[in-house]
């Protein structure tokens, strides 16, 4: 599903963000990517989203060579990847329904399909009754669930979550992780970038640990490795 071969990314300032990393993530896997600031996690996410191009190496996602992707093909490629961020990135002037429907409107899904899909996906994330609420009327956990609903409504085969629990309390953090696990059980490949040691250690999933642009460890049922 995701294949990186000797990927190097050096920014124009000359500082290397990734120094030749290779990894393979199969379809349907649930993977944690951990590491301290400057380890290259964010660069990896940006490369997968094709916000950046690698300096060298090859990235294959869902049978698409991302490194050779033409500019005009990027939007269609990104429809294969759902994204969830630490700061939720919801549209504050729109209600829950419109925030989720937005993801379908911008890719020209017909109106009647949107009306059918949005209630379904809101039900999956447990927010069916809050469809008319504005983001500011929701708790952090609920806002993140709206973001997850928006990320999965187009049924992408891959879900990227960048610090999805970074702004949440432990209870809400666990609820989000359970939701991501549920989505993973339905067949979606899930990549979670996190600093949450408790969750990583408890969930017993594959853990890729990065440090200074290289992969320090890649373990099935891994644990959070301390910086030291």
């Amino acid at each position: 599903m995701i294949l990186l071969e000797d990927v190097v990314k050096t920014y124009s300032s000359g500082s290397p963000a990734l120094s030749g990393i290779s990894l393979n993530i199969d379809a349907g896997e649930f993977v944690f990517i951990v590491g301290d600031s400057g380890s290259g996690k964010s660069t990896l996410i940006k490369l997968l989203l094709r916000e950046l191009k690698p300096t060298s190496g090859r990235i294959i996602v869902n049978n698409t060579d991302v490194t050779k992707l033409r500019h005009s093909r990027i939007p269609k490629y990104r429809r294969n990847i759902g994204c969830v961020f630490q700061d939720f990135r919801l549209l504050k002037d729109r209600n829950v329904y419109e925030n989720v429907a937005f993801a379908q409107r911008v890719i020209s899904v017909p109106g009647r399909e949107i009306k059918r899909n949005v209630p379904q996906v809101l039900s999956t994330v447990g927010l069916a009754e809050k469809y008319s609420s504005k983001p500011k009327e929701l708790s952090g956990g609920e806002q993140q669930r709206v973001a997850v609903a928006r990320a999965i409504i187009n049924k992408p085969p891959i879900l990227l979550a960048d610090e999805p629990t970074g702004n949440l309390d432990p209870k809400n953090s666990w609820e989000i992780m359970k939701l991501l696990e549920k989505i993973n059980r339905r067949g979606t490949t899930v990549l979670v970038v996190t600093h949450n040691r408790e969750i990583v250690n408890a969930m017993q999933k594959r853990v890729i640990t990065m440090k200074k642009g290289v992969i320090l460890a890649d373990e099935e049922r891994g644990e959070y490795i301390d910086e030291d």
Partner: protein
Amino acid sequence: MRISTLGFTLKQGIKSIFRNKIFSLATIATIGSCIFLFGLFYAVMVNFQNIVHQVESGVAVTVFFEPDLPDERIVQIGQEIGQRAEVSKVVYVSAEEAWNEFKDDYLGEYADTFGDDNPLADSANYEIYLNDVAMQEDLVEYLMTVDGISEIHKSANVANTLATANSLVSYVSLAIIFILFAVSIFLISNTVAIGISVRREEIGIMKLIGASDFVVRAPFMLEGMILGLVGAAIPLIVIYFIYNKAIGYVMQEFAVLNSILAFLPVEQIFYTLVPIALILGVGIGFLGSGLTVRRHLRV
């Protein structure tokens, strides 16, 4: 493209206009002012050209014939001149008509003292009217080569002054209009840039979700075009109502010039002005937003 996408794009563009009310109003006011001034300059230019044309049509070159030139040759000369591209009309004035006109214009009751004599017996002539006063010199050069013509009277000063004034008005108007439109494009570009910065987060989300370049850019382009259209429509309405009043005022205040000031009716001016102004308004909107979108929205 689906109708729902078009509807979504249109809705986003209109929403953006209302979201940035102040800047949208400022843009409409600026485009409106520019189109208003353009409309005024256009009306002045077209009317001036019309007046010049009226005067031009009254400017004639007069040719006199050699004494005892046969009538057949005179007719032949008239036909040759009438075929020239510069010429709009050739009028034959017989010696008798010339004398009668002279009597009416200058002698009045003293004309009787001449009895049946015609002091202008050799004054039969052609009055040659031109399509364009600027062509007068070419025509005169030709006339000098024609056998049977003894004398050519021309009004070089009038011709040159009118032609120069006409070009000057056109060039000045074009220069001012060009500057106004450059300012408009700059301002609309700023408004759209502000719209983009206000919606930066939304644009970021759209890009991540996989919205095409068209879907991301179209609302901004549409916003610019709507602002341009509204900015063009308002001054046209204003000009429509003030034009007749302004003409009425000028005709009343400068009644002595009524014979020269031949103003065009507003309908005739609007026949060309409306499509030009609307296309310009939408064009400015398209260009201004297009430049900004290209610069700020590398999707």
